[in-house]
C-alpha cells in the first residue's frame, strides 16, 4: 500500500481550517492586503513569504485579531472571526520580539495563558511541566527572561504560545534573532514540535530558505497580493511568474518571443544572431508572444567543447563565485547577457577545469527551464 502523502489542499472534500475570502486591508490610502483569497488546512505548516512591506505581517495580525478587515471575511473552522476580539480567539501567536513578560519567571510566562481560563492549579502545573519538557527548558523554569539566552527565550515564547493548545499557532519571524547555526537546529525543532502537537502553524518570514525548510506549503506575497501558493518543490521548480522565480533562489532569465514547434514545445527567439533555444511548457503560448525562460543555475552545465544538448550557447567566463561546496560561473554571452552555471566542487580547487576569460559552452535540456508569460 502506498503511503498517503499529506496534501489536503488537493482534496476537494477537505474543509480548510482558515479561509480568507476577498480580504482587503487599507491603512488610509495604502493598500496592505489587496483582495486576497486563500485556504489553509488543518495540520499544515504554512509559510507566508515575501519582502518587507508585502503585507504578510498584516495578514498574521488579522488572524490574531490585532487588525480589523477593511473588506472581505476570514473564517476559522467555519466561523467568521471578524467580530471576535483577540483574547477570545483559539489562536495564539509567537511574537518576533518574543514579547516575554520581563517581570515573570519562565514558569509564570508559560502559565499566563492557562491561568486566564482555569483555576485548577494542579492541571496548570501539569501542563506547564509538559511544555517545559517539550521545549527542554526544565532547568530554567525559575529564571526570569533576562537571565536566559536568546535561543532559550525563543523556546519559552514557543512553549507559552503552545500551552493553551491553540487550533492555530502564528509565528512572526520566529528565528530572526538567532544566529545561523542555532537557526537551522531550531527549524528542525519547530517541525518536530509541529508534528508532535498536530497544531496548524502559520509562519511569517522573509527568509526563503527557512520557508522552504519548514513549510508544507508556501505563499509568496508581493504588495498585498499572493503571487503563488504551492509546496516548496513546486514554488522552486514550477514558479508561475518571473517574480516568484526571482524571489526564490537564483535564476537565469532569457527574454524572447515564443514560437510553437510541436506539442507543448516552443522555440524562444532570445537574440537576433543566436540560435533559438527550445523549451517544453504545458502553459500555452501563441506565436510571437513575449515570454521569459527561467533556468536555475544548477540546471545549467558548463563545457569546454560544444556539447550534444537541446540548448548550447557559447560564451566566456566572466566571474567565478567560489562557495566551498559549489562554484557559480558567470558566463558572458556575445549578446552581453550573463548566464550563471552552478557546479558542485567534487574535485579539489587545483583540479578545477575553468578559469577567468576561458571560452566555454553552457547547456541545458529543454525541460530544465520554465517558460513564463510575466
Amino acid at each position, binding site marked *: 500500500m502506498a503511503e498517503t502523502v499529506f496534501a489536503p489542499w488537493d482534496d476537494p472534500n477537505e474543509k480548510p481550517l482558515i479561509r480568507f475570502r476577498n480580504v482587503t486591508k487599507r491603512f488610509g490610502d495604502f493598500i496592505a492586503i489587496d483582495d486576497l483569497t486563500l485556504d489553509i488546512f488543518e495540520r499544515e505548516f504554512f509559510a507566508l513569504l515575501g519582502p518587507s512591506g508585502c503585507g504578510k505581517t498584516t495578514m498574521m495580525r488579522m488572524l*490574531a*485579531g*490585532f487588525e480589523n478587515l477593511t473588506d472581505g471575511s476570514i473564517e476559522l473552522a467555519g466561523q467568521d472571526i471578524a467580530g471576535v*476580539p*483577540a*483574547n*477570545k480567539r483559539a*489562536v*495564539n*501567536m509567537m*511574537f*518576533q*520580539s518574543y*514579547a516575554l*513578560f*520581563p*517581570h515573570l519567571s519562565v514558569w509564570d510566562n508559560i502559565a*499566563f*495563558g492557562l491561568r*486566564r*481560563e482555569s483555576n485548577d492549579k494542579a492541571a496548570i502545573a501539569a501542563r506547564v511541566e509538559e511544555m517545559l519538557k517539550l521545549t527542554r527548558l526544565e532547568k530554567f523554569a525559575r529564571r*526570569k527572561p*533576562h*537571565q*536566559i*539566552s*536568546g*535561543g*532559550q527565550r525563543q523556546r519559552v515564547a514557543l512553549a*507559552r*504560545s503552545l500551552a*493553551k493548545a491553540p487550533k492555530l499557532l502564528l509565528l512572526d519571524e520566529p528565528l530572526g534573532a538567532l544566529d545561523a547555526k542555532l537557526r537551522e537546529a531550531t527549524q528542525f525543532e519547530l517541525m518536530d514540535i509541529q508534528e508532535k502537537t498536530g497544531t496548524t502553524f502559520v509562519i511569517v518570514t522573509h527568509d526563503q530558505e527557512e520557508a522552504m525548510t519548514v513549510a508544507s506549503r508556501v505563499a509568496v506575497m508581493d504588495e498585498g497580493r499572493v503571487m503563488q501558493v504551492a509546496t516548496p518543490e513546486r514554488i522552486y521548480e514550477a514558479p508561475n511568474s518571473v517574480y516568484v522565480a526571482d524571489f526564490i533562489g537564483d535564476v537565469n532569465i532569457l527574454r524572447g518571443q515564443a514560437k510553437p514547434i510541436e506539442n507543448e514545445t516552443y522555440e524562444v527567439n532570445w537574440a537576433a544572431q543566436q540560435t533559438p533555444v527550445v523549451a517544453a511548457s504545458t502553459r500555452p503560448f501563441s506565436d510571437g508572444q513575449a515570454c521569459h525562460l527561467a533556468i536555475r543555475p544548477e540546471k545549467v552545465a558548463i563545457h569546454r567543447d560544444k556539447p550534444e544538448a537541446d540548448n548550447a550557447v557559447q560564451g566566456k567566463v566572466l566571474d567565478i563565485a567560489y562557495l566551498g561546496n559549489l562554484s557559480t560561473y558567470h558566463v558572458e554571452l556575445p549578446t552581453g547577457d550573463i548566464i550563471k552555471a552552478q557546479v558542485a566542487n567534487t574535485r579539489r580547487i587545483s583540479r578545477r577545469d575553468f578559469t577567468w576569460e576561458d571560452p566555454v559552452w553552457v547547456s541545458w535540456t529543454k525541460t530544465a527551464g520554465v517558460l513564463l508569460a510575466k
Partner: protein
Amino acid sequence: MNRLSSFNVVSLTLGFVFLYVPMLILVIYSFNASKLVTVWAGFSTKWYGELLSNDAFLDAAWVTLRVAVISSTIATVLGTMAAYVLVRGGRFWGRTLFSGMIYAPLVMPEVITGLSLLLLFIGIGLDRGVLTIVLAHTTFSMCFVSVVVSSRLVSFDRSLEEAALDLGASPWDAFRLVTLPIIAPAVISGWLLAFTLSLDDLVIASFTSGPSATTLPMKIWSSVRLGVSPEINALSTILIGLVTVGVIAASLASKQAAVRAKRDEQAAARAA
C-alpha cells in the same frame, strides 16, 4: 585615573558653595542657644524641644502630610489613566488637543491655578479646608504624573500587551498583570513627584485653604513674616534631614538594581 585640574576643583567648589552654604547656615543656627537668629550664643538643642511642643506646627505638619498622601495617590491614579489613554488610545478625535492640554497646567503660573480653583470652590459653595487643598493639589500634580508615566509608556513594547491579549487576558487583566508591573517604577516616581510637589506648595494652598486647615509651608511663611525664629530653623533642618535620607535611599536602591541587572545579563550570556 585623571586627576582633577585646579580649574575643575575651583568650579566644583564654587558650585557646591553656591548650593549648600545657605542650607548649612540654617542647620548651624538651628542649634543656636540664642533667640536672635543672627547672633551665635552657644550650642543647644532646645529649639527642637520647643518645636515638638508647638501644637500649631505639629498640626500644620499633619495636615500637610495627609494632603500630600491623599492628593498624590489620587493624582497618580488619574495621571496614569490619562497617560495610558493618550499614549495607547490611537488616533481619536481631539487627541492632539487633549495631549496639549494635559501639559498646560505645567507652565501655568501657580497664582492663576490657585485663583481659578478658589473661584470654582466659592462658585460651587465648597467649604475651604483639607478637602479643597487635596482637590487643588490633585489637579496640578496629576499633570506631572501623566508626563512621567507617558514617557515610560512610549518606550514600552506594545507587543507585550498584545501577547497578554493573545493569551486570553481581558484588556483590564492585560493592564493589571503586564503593563502596570512593568511601568511601576514610573508610576512610583510619579507618585513621589506629586507627593513632593504637594509638600512644597505654598501658593496654591494659600488660595484654596480655609481657617480650618493650614499646611506647613503656609505656617512657616506666616511665622517668618513676623520674624525668623530658631524654631523654624529647627523645623527646616528636620525637613532637610528627611529629604537627604530619602534621596540617598532612592539612589542606593537604583544602584543596587542596576548592579543586579548587570549580573543577571552576564549570567545569561554565560548560559548561552
